[in-house]
């Protein structure tokens, strides 16, 4: 993966978001806000049962309602093939069932029809008039009632069942201190502020345009093309802005296919915008988990055995594994004996899916709480226990991490937080009547770098246009790519225009797995080098040029917009001069990055999360009053926007720890708390000072920027740090999230 290091000029600077002005003026256009001529409005009708069969549909009233153009249900919808979930290059499709393909109901909230009308008001009203009759069966909602239980072998090429050493023996060893507990997390729902939406426009029977809220324009293009039997290039997917996603807009969900179906049926553009309630069943969620964690350590605090058995859920219409063990025990701490496994239960709940730091987030919650319990059992400071077990090697792969500055994270964090003033005994720290608790946890997330192609054009006026079918979910990707492009071309950021969010551009991967900065950034570097090579070739071929007949391979960027000789940088020419001498208005090049496996090093980011809580002992609503986060993510491309990424992950982690839970009605199986009044996410008043610091060095083994992604790591370890602080404050160990006031009464 390694290429020559990119010199940092713009990289590392706290550049304001390049799309900031558009966002603060309301001029940023999100997919649902496009308005093709003749746009009609579709409204989805969802199932009121979670398991059973549709026995009848009476659509007469809906069809007669004013403004209605079409009512589609399984009785009249076209039969489409089921494109598989092919992941990387071919799109992600976790819910395998094609909408309206039959009368079967597999989960509450499943789409049973769509009404298309002239206006939104008409469509919603007519949707209420659609009468669907069901033969309901008792839904399976809990693992005890699961339709199927499996222990799958692997997910995305990673082993889901792993064992090394003799865990059983170590856990039984009387010389070792041992803890074993079960930790559970509830169903959590992404809830980006922008609901998923698709506008479908058939420009001809063979050409389709989708304005789609997606983290993966190329994936949506591929899947929709296969579903409708179209050539890939005849499906255009446009998504210049994403109003938050956190994973839920990575896969193609059924509403996107319905929008295309409906637009085809009425011969006009159709918009389907999910309601907030529909976001709780139609676009995935983080599976509830139950995790049994056993740890054994020698008296000096060194881990001897780790066992981590995780259970999660999937639906009858797809397969998904919340890989808690891979996300935590796989990478966190080394020990002579390690075992982790995953069990997945199929229940009548909408398809689970990846949500910010899937696996890592719930996995680090369980393991980092268990570490806290182990520290208590060993009478060791919980931070010291973690420092003792900080290993330079990947625990299950047995290879070294490329770089790992976790020790610095612990040290810097402890200083900033004032950890040394912590009194060990629970309930021993107070602020007036309030109980004060301090907790710590380790954060971790893998560094992913996949495949992408970047197209780059340099114009004689000294500006560059850079394009890739990638995405900015609010991550700051547009800005980071502008900075990387600037450094790769040796130009100031003001001369760079980076464009994304269209399937017309060269391939970009899903904006997931915190991969985009590394993947697209590396492709930018390749494109810039290809472009400079073309310029160098022109320069050395030009008899007027100072570089005439120089070895093109020795020509490099020597200054802003200038090429010169490695050996004699003073001998240089400007890009503009090269182009004008060649009589070219512009020159362009592509850089294609292929995914590579590196068996010598493991690439992983780490961090330390420190949390202070204050709790009224009688009326115990937990307040997170301070949070210190220290992260090692390699080079930080933009210090301001990078800190925002970590901050956002922490806020979501606080929500996970204290507030978030999707409940399901035991009888109907419908999500009960499917709105933002009943599904609580943090509000302003919940969030106090959060301090984010970066440590470490550029990971130049990983890529030319030395950057590892940072979209998800902030959401790991956070819930454990909060839960550990709650234990320290109250002496009560709550092992089932969220820690709502009733659990501390």
């Amino acid at each position, binding site marked *: 993966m390694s290429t020559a290091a990119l010199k940092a000029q713009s990289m590392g600077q706290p550049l304001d978001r390049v799309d900031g002005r558009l966002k603060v003026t309301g001029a940023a256009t999100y997919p649902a806000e496009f308005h093709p001529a003749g746009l009609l409005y579709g409204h989805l009708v*969802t199932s*009121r049962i979670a398991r059973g069969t549709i026995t009848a549909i009476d659509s007469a009233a809906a069809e007669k309602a*004013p403004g209605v153009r079409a009512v589609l249900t399984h009785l009249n919808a076209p039969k489409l093939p089921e494109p598989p979930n092919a992941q990387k290059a071919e799109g992600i499709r976790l819910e395998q069932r094609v909408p309206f393909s039959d009368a079967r109901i597999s989960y509450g909230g499943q789409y049973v029809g769509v009404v298309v009308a002239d206006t939104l*008001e008409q469509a*919603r*009203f007519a949707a*209420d008039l659609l009468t669907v009759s069901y033969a309901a069966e008792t839904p399976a909602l809990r693992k005890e009632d699961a339709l199927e239980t499996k222990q799958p072998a692997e997910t995305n090429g990673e082993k889901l069942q792993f064992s090394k050493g003799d865990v059983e023996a170590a856990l039984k060893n009387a010389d070792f201190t041992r803890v074993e507990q079960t930790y559970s997390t509830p169903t959590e729902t992404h809830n980006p502020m922008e609901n998923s939406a698709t506008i479908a426009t058939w420009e001809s029977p063979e050409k389709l345009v989708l304005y789609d809220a997606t983290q993966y324009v190329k994936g949506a293009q591929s899947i929709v093309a296969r579903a409708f039997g179209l050539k890939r290039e005849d499906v255009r997917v446009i998504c210049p802005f994403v109003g938050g996603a956190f994973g839920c807009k990575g896969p193609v969900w059924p509403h996107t296919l319905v929008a295309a179906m409906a637009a085809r049926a009425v011969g006009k553009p159709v918009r389907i915008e999910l309601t907030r*309630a529909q976001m709780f069943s139609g676009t995935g969620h983080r599976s509830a988990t139950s995790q049994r964690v056993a740890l054994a350590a020698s008296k000096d605090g060194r881990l001897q055995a780790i066992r981590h058995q995780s259970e999660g859920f999937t639906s009858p219409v797809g397969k998904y594994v919340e890989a808690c063990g891979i996300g935590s025990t796989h990478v966190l701490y080394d020990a002579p004996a390690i075992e982790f496994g995953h069990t997945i239960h199929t229940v009548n709940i909408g398809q689970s899916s990846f949500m910010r730091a899937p696996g890592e987030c719930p996995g680090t919650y369980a393991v980092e709480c268990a570490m806290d319990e182990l520290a208590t059992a060993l009478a060791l400071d919980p931070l010291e226990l973690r420092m003792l077990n900080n290993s330079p090697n990947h625990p299950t792969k047995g290879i070294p991490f490329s770089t790992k500055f976790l020790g610095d994270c612990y040290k810097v964090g402890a200083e900033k937080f004032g950890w040394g003033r912590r009194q060990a005994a629970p309930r021993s720290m107070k602020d007036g009547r309030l109980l004060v608790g301090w907790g710590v946890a380790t954060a971790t997330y893998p560094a992913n770098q996949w495949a992408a192609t970047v197209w780059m054009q340099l114009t004689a006026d000294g500006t560059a246009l850079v394009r890739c079918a990638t995405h900015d979910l609010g991550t700051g990707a547009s800005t980071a790519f502008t900075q990387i492009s600037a450094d790769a071309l040796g130009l100031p950021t003001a001369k760079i225009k980076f464009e994304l969010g269209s399937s017309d551009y060269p391939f970009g991967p899903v904006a997931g797995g915190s991969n985009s900065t590394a993947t697209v950034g590396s492709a930018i570097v390749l494109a810039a080098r290809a472009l400079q090579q073309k310029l160098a070739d022109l320069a050395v071929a030009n008899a007027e040029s100072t570089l005439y007949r120089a070895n093109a391979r020795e020509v490099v960027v020597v200054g802003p917009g200038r090429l010169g000789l490695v050996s004699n940088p003073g001998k240089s020419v400007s890009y503009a001069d090269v182009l004008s001498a060649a009589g070219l208005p512009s020159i362009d090049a592509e850089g294609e990055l292929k995914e590579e496996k590196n068996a010598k090093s493991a690439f992983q980011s780490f961090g330390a999360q420190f949390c202070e809580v204050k709790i009224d002992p*009688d*009326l115990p*609503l937990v*307040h997170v009053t301070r949070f210190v986060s220290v992260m090692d993510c390699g080079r930080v491309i933009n210090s301001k926007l990078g800190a925002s990424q970590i901050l956002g992950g922490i806020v979501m982690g606080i929500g996970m720890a*204290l*507030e978030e839970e999707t*409940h*399901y*009605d*035991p*009888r*109907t199986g*419908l999500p*009960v*708390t*499917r709105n933002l*009044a*009943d599904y*609580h996410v*943090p*509000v*302003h*008043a*919940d969030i106090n000072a959060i301090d984010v610091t970066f440590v470490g060095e550029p990971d130049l083994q990983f890529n030319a920027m030395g950057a590892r992604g940072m979209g998800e790591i902030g959401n790991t370890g956070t819930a454990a740090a909060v839960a550990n602080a709650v234990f320290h404050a109250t002496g009560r160990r709550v092992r089932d999230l969220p820690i*709502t*006031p*009733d659990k501390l*009464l």
Partner: protein
Amino acid sequence: MNPFTYARAKDAESAVALRRGDAGAKFLGGGTNLIDLMKMGVETPTQLVDINRLPLDKIEELPDGRGVRIGALARNSDAAENPLLRERYPVLREAFLSGASPQLRNLATVGGNLLQRTRCYYFYDPDFPACNKRAPGSGCGALEGYNRVHAILGQSEHCIATHPSDMCVALAVLDASVQVTGPKGSRSISFGEFHRLPGDHPEIETNLAPDELITAVDLPPLPAGARTHYVKMRDRSSYAFALVSVAVVLELRAGTIQSARVALGGVAHKPWRATKAETRLQGVKTGDETALREAAEAELAGAKGYQHNSFKIEMAKRTIVRAIVEAAT
């Protein structure tokens, strides 16, 4: 949302006249609850009578020292900031500011808040078939369902929903009265008589006649030196409905409670006036937390919890004690 006709009234008489004889008509005030429920398909009026331009938004002193009158169309935010109310009824300001959000309080009216409907999940979402309040006779989905936010006092086998308003809990301890006007003229309803317990008819929530219009809420003066306070327990720091809330009005002499008014929110179908606790609190020292706790225990003795809300019984007791202690200090 079903189709409806829209009429804009200029004064109370025309508003009442517009609605008269039309069983499908509703008054539209701030709309924060009604429009929400219309979008959900729970409320399906065929006519909306927009009363927002009625001159009923004044907050003014009643003559002869009889207290303060809050116009029914006063917005919650304006009532919260009103100098007269801030000075004389600080508990009301506390309650207003703990409810909803600034934006919603800018819309929500005092009259509308009196008629705010329950946040029971099974009532709010018509995809759940059982709700006696929404569809009389269909059963109660919450009894055996997810019932975290539900009632522990005064509920019936037909309904365990709670009243969600913060303002109403304060009004309950202020001994407010609700002024209404209708085809048969105007009348005053004492606050304790305004809301109903569910009994056999959870669909009937107040003693307001269908064609009556709330015009004002009257607040009698509080005893001189009375201490008041509102404490709200919820699942996050702001912008959440109460799990349990408590409003108190105390008359103290040398640290001893001469009289107490205590009301609970989030625990019953109506703002729950805790008369048993009030009786017990007479003569109790505010520093005697054991005696305060006993008074709270007396009120909650008849409470009944369900699978997910039993915690409210203990939480209510603690919140009562806390509200009194903080009011007294």
